[in-house]
């Protein structure tokens, strides 16, 4: 009985060798399906990266009507920093605020001529740690700030935050639905292709059953064959996705998403690459299983 797994593998390989066209069709289908899926995942990953880049914009600004003495100011800053949600606190003096404003006005900067830096308030700009860049995180930080009566005037771009969160929700939902749809479509196509390959060999399935092979014994080589085809398809898909990524996607995405230079478009991380190969194996194996169940009713 020990040489059974070897026998199964041998049969799977022999079957593949005996019908190279069908085997190629199954591998090709897996490869194409997974390439599309990989493409989609690539886009989602990069959009997600972009949103995390955007989320750096989520910050809370506390305006100071009067600038306290240096020691008090440092105390306040220290207090704010101790909150786990807070990543950093920067003091922006009136002068700095005025300079920033001037830069933002660009050509119209001369509007500010004759005005004094005193017109703008000094502020504390609080950036949030990445995992707290959400409505809830902001609320917590704001609540903490409001305990200090001198920091009562707090702004945090509420509208922008809500829209950002709605966008993220939509992105996740669309990602999940489209991803599930693509995976399902892939499974459907792959299982149908494998059904064709099995159909071409139904005489063999029938004879196996007639001479006393157990259903598991009949199925295993085909499952194995499906899994091998899936794995090969997965490897091809990975190569295909990488090639497309290098030739087309990298530049295109960079332009579409208008990512600033610091954040570059990335290829699938290793875990995703492994997951893609795993998806190939599962797709092939499961595709065979679905077809086998239909063919082996008798």
């Amino acid at each position, binding site marked *: 009985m020990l040489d*059974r797994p070897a026998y199964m593998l041998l049969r799977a390989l022999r079957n593949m060798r005996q019908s190279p066209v069908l085997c190629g069709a199954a591998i090709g289908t897996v490869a194409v399906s997974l390439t599309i899926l990989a493409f989609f995942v690539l886009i989602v990953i990069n959009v997600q990266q972009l949103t995390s880049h955007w989320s750096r914009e989520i910050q809370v600004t506390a305006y100071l009507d009067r600038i306290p003495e240096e020691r008090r100011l440092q105390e306040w800053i220290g207090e704010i920093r101790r909150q786990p949600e807070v990543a950093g606190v920067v003091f922006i003096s009136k002068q700095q605020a005025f300079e920033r404003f001037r830069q933002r006005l660009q050509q119209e900067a001369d509007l500010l001529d004759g005005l004094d830096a005193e017109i703008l308030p000094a502020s504390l700009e609080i950036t949030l740690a990445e995992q707290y860049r959400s409505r809830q995180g902001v609320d917590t930080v704001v609540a903490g700030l409001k305990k200090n009566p001198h920091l009562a005037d707090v702004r945090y771009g509420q509208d922008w935050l809500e829209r950002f969160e709605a966008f993220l929700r939509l992105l996740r939902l669309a990602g999940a639905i489209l991803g599930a749809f693509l995976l399902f479509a892939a499974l459907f196509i792959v299982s149908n292709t494998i059904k064709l390959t099995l159909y071409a060999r139904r*005489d063999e399935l029938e004879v196996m*059953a007639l*001479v*006393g092979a157990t259903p598991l014994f009949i199925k295993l080589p085909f499952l194995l064959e499906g899994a091998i085809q899936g794995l090969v398809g997965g490897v091809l898909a990975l190569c295909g996705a990488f090639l497309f990524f290098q030739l087309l996607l990298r530049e295109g995405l960079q332009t579409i998403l208008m990512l600033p230079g610091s954040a570059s478009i990335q290829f699938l991380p290793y875990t995703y690459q492994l997951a893609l190969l795993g998806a190939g194996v599962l797709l092939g194996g499961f595709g065979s299983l679905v077809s086998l169940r239909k063919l082996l009713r008798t």
Partner: protein
Amino acid sequence: MIQLFNVSKAYQKDSAALSEITLKVPKRDFVYLTGASGAGKSTLLKLLFGAEKPSRGQILINGQNITRMLSRIPALRRRMGIVFQDFKLLNRRTIFENVAFPLEIQGKKRYEIGKKVYQALQQVGLEHKLQRFPLELSGGEQQRVAIARALVVDPLVLIADEPTGNLDPEVALEIMDLFKVANARGSTVVLATHDREMIRRIPRRVITLEGGRLIDDQTP
């Protein structure tokens, strides 16, 4: 030993393919199953090797009730040889591989497979065509390969559905000789045929079906 008790089979609700068949075939018996087309011969054979389940009644083979435990059917078929009118050989495999198939499935050792396959092919007179493919052989030769595949497992029961239906009369007689020999070596043979001439030339017990009912059971 094959026993059937009140076995009925209906594919559709109103029309019974077999009704109320009760039958006993002792060990080493040779039985013809005869009747016109559609009388239920093939259905009865399918019930015997578990390709169909009876709608009612019980079937016992060597004391095992095969109607209850579907999972026993593979084990049952390993001690059974089944031969069809259309041979059911794998055309992409050699004669040797075709005959070796049942033993391969049983996980037999390679040298044992080689020996048994050669013996089985010798029995049917085709040991010199080991490496040929089925479609390179004549119809009679292909049926002999199918019989070798059935005999290679030393079957307790040999079931044949019109095994000579596609063959010339002389070739058919040669094929029948092989069943006679298998029977003499200890296999119970159940052979469906509508060839009256064959039954006359090789007289054995004859069970006649008509419209799904057993209407006659005669032993010469």
